[in-house]
Each structure stands twice: as structure tokens, then as C-alpha cells.
């Protein structure tokens, strides 16, 4: 089954990104596909490569990047939401790309399930 994931909140402040990540990773472990994760609203802040969280806790951006690298998950950041929040190509962590809201709509059309994680 193909799962699409929508992440509406940024790292750390809300649990949404963590829950979404654990859902995605588990879905992949169970043999499902997570072709794309779409980041909207403050969710675009998950894409920064500039975060330096403490070493003894998870690095939210980096583990999304790792999921992209290991399993080919397409991490898409909404261009309009990114522009409002100062996320551009210069600050993107590996595996993330900036694109349009159409990418989210396509997920709804093409995938079997679309799950929203937010506040």
C-alpha cells in the first residue's frame, strides 16, 4: 500500500513531526511504501540543515533526511509556506526539495492513504 503523509508542524514544538516520522518508518518496515512526505505550514521548518539540537536527543531534520536516503522517500516542502518562513534552497537538508501544493494534491489522488499530522 502507498501511504502519503502531510506534516503540518515544525520540529520539537509539536509532536506531529515525530509521530509522522515513526509512522513512516514503521510503514516502510512493514513493507508498505511511503513515496512522499509533504511539509506544510510550520512543517517546512523540518527541512532546515541549520539545526544543531543537543547530541543526546533525536535530530528531527536529519532523521527525515536519513529516511529519504535509505528508502527514497521524497520530502517536499511547500514553496509558499517556505517563502513565508525563510526556507529556501540554501538551507535545505539533504533529501528535501521545495515544490508546489500540487504535489500534495497528487498524493491524495495517486496514493492509497493520506494521513495528516498536525496540531
Amino acid at each position, binding site marked *: 500500500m502507498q501511504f502519503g503523509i502531510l506534516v503540518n508542524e515544525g520540529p520539537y514544538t509539536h509532536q506531529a513531526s515525530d509521530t509522522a516520522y515513526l509512522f513512516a518508518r514503521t510503514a516502510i518496515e512493514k513493507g508498505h511504501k511511503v513515496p512522499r512526505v509533504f511539509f506544510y*505550514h510550520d512543517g517546512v521548518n523540518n527541512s532546515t540543515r541549520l539545526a544543531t539540537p543537543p547530541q543526546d536527543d533525536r535530530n528531527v531534520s536529519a532523521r527525515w533526511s536519513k529516511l529519504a536516503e535509505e528508502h527514497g522517500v521524497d520530502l517536499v516542502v511547500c*514553496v509558499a*509556506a517556505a517563502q513565508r518562513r525563510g526556507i529556501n534552497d540554501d538551507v535545505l537538508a539533504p533529501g528535501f526539495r521545495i*515544490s508546489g*501544493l*500540487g504535489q*500534495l494534491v497528487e498524493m*491524495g*489522488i495517486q496514493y492509497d492513504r493520506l494521513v495528516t499530522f498536525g496540531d
Partner: protein
Amino acid sequence: MSDMDEMDDGSGVVKKFMFLNRKAPHGTVYALEGLEVVLITAAFDQDVSMVFTDDGVFQLMKGIDSKGIEVKDFSKTYRALEGYDIEKLYVDQASMDARGLTEDDLIVDVTVLSVDEMANLMAEQDVVISF
């Protein structure tokens, strides 16, 4: 890059998309950015419904004036939805009642649903996007 360049994913698949709006405008960004998703979805020829319940009904109020808070007023965009063939706007009766609102208070024509009607509408959707 323009979202409108990506019109239609080409597959011919039509799904029932529901956009769930439960939050008031301006206190958070969800009303504005939620509306932006709906406008983009219009280009994909899907079966789109917008549902307003709880404080989401406040998004459709007449007489919104955001000059004093120095935030862009996007309330008139709800009137533009019809031009994009987004015509299925549903409002929860109980949410309106709990807020002292009637259809006359709203900026667009809506279909007011009872809780059972709205529950059934939700249950039949293919894709629900929540903000």
C-alpha cells in the same frame, strides 16, 4: 515555479477530497493556508468539499476587517471559490448555533448540515486533509 503548471496528474482518477476547517481565522494561519490548498486543488478536477465546523465557521463571517491587526484580509477569497468550481461548502448547524450565527452572517452561500448529515458526508470521502 507555478503550481498551475502542474494541473491534473493526468490519470483521470477523480476522488472525493474533503478539506476540514475547524479553526478561527487570524489566531492561527490554518484558515489562510488551508484556503490556498483548496485553490490549487481546483486545477485537478477532483470532487472537492470544504467543511466548516467548530470555530471554522468563523472563517466565513461577513464584515471581517483585518486592517487593525495589520494582517492581509483573505476573507473575500471564499467568494472566489465558486469561480474555481469549488461550490460544495458545508457548515455544521450545531457549530453555528453554538456561536450565535445564521447563514445571513456568512459571506458565501453554504449548505448547512445536521450532525448526521455531516458525519455521513465525512464517512464517504476518499481523502480528508485537515489543517
